[in-house]
């Protein structure tokens, strides 16, 4: 059975390592914070100016001056710090953030990503996504393997305007975990109950299968 959004988040959370600073995009990535493995400490950065982001506030704690990049009200944890946007993107461009998780409309086998613009539709903007993907060494894309029309989102070449080129290293979808290497998606793990053929069928880009492919350990 393919994963749901929470399952994808849960799998990505296993990529967290002790001491990581992490930037989570809007959507599925946000859910990753709910699955931090036991015994490790990570800190969440939000690009509007906080490190050490905590859970959503109680009604009594709500503060209009304390939001995340999705404009949701948040709290701060002990050891938190606030800073301005220039300093925030200094952290991002300067590769001080250890892991970046974000959603995508399309990913190519070269590691290109498109997630900000659909020609003919209202364009809201790239926000911090272009800075994030151009800078981070460790970018994980969290998304469904196919779009609502059932078309693959893992392509030979992106059809939508790009957010960044050759930057995505790992993709976690409802079907599988894949690394991107040498112009191909390398299948690493399968979602429980999903077959290699399922993934092949849902992947338009080059899919490489090396040896046995384990089932995700969630």
């Amino acid at each position: 059975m393919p994963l749901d959004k929470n399952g994808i988040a849960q799998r990505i959370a296993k990529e967290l390592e002790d001491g990581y600073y992490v930037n989570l995009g809007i959507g599925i990535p946000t859910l990753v914070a709910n699955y931090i493995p036991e015994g490790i400490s990570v800190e969440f950065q939000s690009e509007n100016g906080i490190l050490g982001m905590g859970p959503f506030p109680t009604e009594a704690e709500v503060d209009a001056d304390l939001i995340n990049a999705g404009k949701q009200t948040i709290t701060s944890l002990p050891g938190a710090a606030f800073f301005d946007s220039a300093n925030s993107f200094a952290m991002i461009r300067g590769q001080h953030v250890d892991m970046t998780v974000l959603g995508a409309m399309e990913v190519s086998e070269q590691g290109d990503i498109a997630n900000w613009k659909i020609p003919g539709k209202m364009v809201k903007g790239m926000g911090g996504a272009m800075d994030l993907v151009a800078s981070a060494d460790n970018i994980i894309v969290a998304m469904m393997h196919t779009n609502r029309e059932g078309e693959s989102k893992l392509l030979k070449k992106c059809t939508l305007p790009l957010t960044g080129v050759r930057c995505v290293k790992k993709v976690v979808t409802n079907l599988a975990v894949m690394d991107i290497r040498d112009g191909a998606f390398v299948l690493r793990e399968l979602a429980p109950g999903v077959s290699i053929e399922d993934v092949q069928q849902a992947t338009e880009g080059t899919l490489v299968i090396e040896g046995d492919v384990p089932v995700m350990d969630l």
Partner: protein
Amino acid sequence: MIRKVVKDAETAVTGLKDNMTLMLGGFGLCGIPENSIAAIRETGVKGLTCISNNAGVDDFGLGLLLQTQQIKKMISSYVGENDLFEKLMLSGELEVELIPQGTLAERCRAAGAGIPAFYTPAGYGTEVALGKEVRWFKGKPHILEHAFEADFAFVKAWKGDEAGNLIFKGTARNFNPMMAMAGKITVAEVEELVPAGELDPNFIHTPGIFVQRIFEGKAYEKRIEQRTVRQAG
């Protein structure tokens, strides 16, 4: 100590003219110069270019200047939550330039810091890079970006003193400090204006040298876009 205090928002926008370029602090509706926006609307100036990370919502923030069609062009990173914006943009009444958020922040800082241009990896290989110089550093492609210019910068702080020193609160800091550095005339509105000497000089976010006018704002609404709560206990 150099006094920067003006009596109200109306006085603070003196000299604002048609077709000027403005910077406005804030992220979403957090940390926006509410009083200044109201005063800009009152002046009726037209043809403004506004550099601001977002464009407000229909009836608040920069949405108020969109209603009156005082804005000719928006330079932003994300302009989501605004129906009127979409309508004006699609009809061609509003020009929009979208810029990566980190580049937006750095171009503001560069303007204030006397750095005319810098290289950044953000946007390489995308339409943001069109027409821009590409240069490789340490095996990685970068594009050349230039400092902004702004006739006025409008920022909002939590506390300020008569010398123009500013302190921001929480994530309401965001773009305000860099924009304060970048304005030819920087107007700061603050929730609380105190005499010089009351703020600890060690904890000033924006030194007064960057601020030309300061006033205590009134009746802050501080609207929340996405009120998200958990159950207590």
